[in-house]
């Protein structure tokens, strides 16, 4: 069967792989989690993948993804990764516990986790399902249910992923660095991790999640993340997406926050042909803070899409959103930010801003703020700007002896500055500045 002749149905294609997948699960197919998979399979069979006709997907066509036949990681050949490669890929010079996911599957040998404060758990989803199912089962009502075909695809084939559990009162002192390596030499692989992060009452933690590619083929990362924050929990999550250029990245992340908790989600997006992040938070009690920051650099035909949804359900909460895009070539940057302020949610403060710089005439920006406010005593603001590099500032910098290309990249880094400055890990900040600089060098700087 040749892909380019027969137009296949993606839903059917993936559903047909399930029996084989199930057969490889061994005893684990009796766990509570497996019922999720079967439910998701039914959903996958019944729910078409989104098209431009879906309101939430109207700027992002996933057709290129659906034309390809991706093999779920647990059915594909194993991608060989050495510890030297891990050392060279992961960011240097900062103290962290390291978890390596290879095509979404926890790799114990490559991971390096020091002794953790008692009760903190960092383990594979597979292990947790078999050995400590009660840990995640307790929170299962708070976890997202699959809605789209991509969600269903993830859960159907979720053979592994990561579980992080910080019990009451504990502080995860060391940053947790998650390195997701995807790809294959001979196949086109579907990396499908399901990650669960639970921070109970009075806890703290910082997580850096780095996505990279390996091997000669393109691949699809289709990740689902769930965050649960108990009262007073403070959790910072930094996503740094640097997938291979011709690959695809779909991320669905949901957070559930309790009273007084602070959740900060950063999305730095550099790689991938299509990169979509869906991020949503329910602020289900008072005095909660939710911060979303994003920075994306795109060139050629790259397509970067952030969809956010902040759901203010209770009074006295605050949310801040700032997304900044730098778009070159024929790239397209999409931002859609929905803020819901429910009737109960008096004294809500909600801010949202999306700013883009276009470096070429052919780059495109779509930005769509959606405010739905049902309470009367609230402060909400949103704004979007699209601009070009400031010519007078460009001349000013050059007039001090700085060459044209460096002047341009200084201005771009200056534009990105307030997002990068929000990063609370000093070495990561440096790393990000470095990455921005490297990606800018790949961007054609024409005069």
């Amino acid at each position: 069967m040749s892909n380019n002749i027969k137009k296949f149905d993606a839903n059917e294609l993936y559903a047909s792989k399930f029996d084989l997948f199930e057969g490889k699960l061994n005893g684990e197919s009796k766990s509570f989690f497996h019922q999720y998979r079967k439910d998701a399979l039914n959903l996958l069979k019944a729910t078409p993948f989104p098209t431009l006709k879906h309101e939430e997907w109207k700027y992002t066509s996933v057709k290129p993804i659906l034309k390809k036949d991706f093999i779920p990681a647990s059915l594909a050949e194993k991608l060989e990764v050495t510890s030297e490669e891990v050392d060279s890929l992961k960011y240097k010079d900062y103290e962290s516990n390291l978890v390596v996911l290879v095509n979404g599957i926890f790799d114990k040998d490559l991971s390096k986790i020091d002794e953790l404060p008692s009760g903190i758990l960092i383990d594979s989803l597979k292990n947790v399902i078999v050995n400590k199912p009660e840990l995640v089962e307790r929170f299962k009502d708070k976890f997202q249910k699959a809605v789209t075909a991509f969600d269903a695809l993830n859960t159907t084939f979720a053979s592994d992923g990561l579980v992080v559990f910080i019990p009451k009162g504990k502080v995860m002192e060391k940053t947790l660095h998650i390195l997701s390596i995807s790809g294959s030499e001979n196949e086109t692989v579907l990396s499908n991790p399901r990650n669960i992060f639970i921070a109970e009452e009075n806890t703290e933690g910082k997580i850096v999640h780095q996505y990279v590619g390996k091997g000669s083929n393109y691949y699809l990362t289709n990740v689902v993340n769930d965050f649960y924050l108990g009262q007073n929990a403070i959790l910072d999550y930094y996503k740094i997406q640097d997938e291979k250029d011709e690959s695809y990245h779909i991320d669905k992340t949901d957070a559930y926050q309790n009273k007084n908790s602070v959740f900060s989600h950063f999305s730095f997006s550099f790689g991938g042909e299509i990169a979509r992040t869906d991020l949503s938070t329910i602020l289900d009690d008072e005095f909660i803070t939710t911060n979303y920051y994003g920075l994306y650099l795109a060139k050629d035909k790259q397509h970067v899409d952030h969809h956010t949804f902040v759901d203010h359900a209770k009074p006295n909460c605050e949310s801040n959103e700032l997304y900044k895009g730098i778009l070159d070539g024929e790239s397209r940057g999409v931002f859609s930010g929905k803020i819901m302020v429910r009737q109960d949610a008096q004294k809500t403060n909600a801010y949202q801003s999306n700013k883009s710089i276009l470096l070429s005439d052919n780059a495109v920006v779509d930005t769509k703020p959606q405010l739905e406010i049902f309470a009367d005593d609230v402060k909400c603001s949103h704004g979007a700007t699209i601009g070009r590099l400031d010519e007078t500032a460009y001349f000013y910098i050059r007039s001090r002896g700085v060459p044209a290309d460096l002047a341009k990249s200084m201005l771009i880094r200056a534009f990105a500055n307030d997002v990068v400055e929000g990063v609370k890990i000093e070495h990561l900040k440096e790393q990000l500045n470095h990455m921005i600089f490297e990606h800018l060098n790949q961007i054609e700087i024409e005069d």
Partner: protein
Amino acid sequence: MIKINNLQARVEEKEILKGLNLEINPGEVHAIMGPNGSGKSTLANVLAGNEGYEVTGGEAFFEGKDLLDMAPEDRAREGLFLAFQYPIEIPGITNATFLKTAINEIRKYHGKEEMSPKDFMALIREKAQLIGLNDTMISRFVNVGFSGGEKKRNEIFQMLMLNPKFALLDETDSGLDIDALKIVAEGVNKFRNKDNAVLVVTHYQRLLNYIVPDFVHVLSNGRIIKSGTKELAYELEEKGYDWIKDENLQPESV
């Protein structure tokens, strides 16, 4: 040091400079005065290489090199400096980073190694003290939130840091209070030596009491219509520009 012959330039189809001649030698200070809109800032921008201004004729040499052929950054690296009439704000870049990058790029151009952080800090401290800028201003973003006078002071601070051969000061005195004017003038006087040159653009004779010029030129309608010594500035302060314009018209109408 600077030689300008019959320079003509326009902005957005409008002729501004209409054949300007000027020569400045090392060790000299020149002042240009002239009515609003006469082309003073245009001259400054053309010399600094602002691509928004189109040179339509004439030539300009800097130490014998064709200035009009060079990119703005190369003019700066060769030793030309423009203190802007309206300094630019750059959110996201601190003064310190800005100057460090500029200094090191200029050094690189001349085949020199980067300045050590220690030497850089020492230089900053020395020059900032000279011009009365405090540490917090140096770690702030370039000109962001600076008052009008602070921005002007910052221009002179940059000049002192980069130590150019030829400094063009475009209305650096406007917006400065009397004390700041003295400090800035003192900075310029400390900078002056027999090997460099300064061209100040100003509307006020007062500045020239502090930065004493060797020559004063009147720019009107795109040309230098009169040149003289510092006494000319007093005369202008007293009589305005009309008498020269009239005087200047006569020979043409003969």
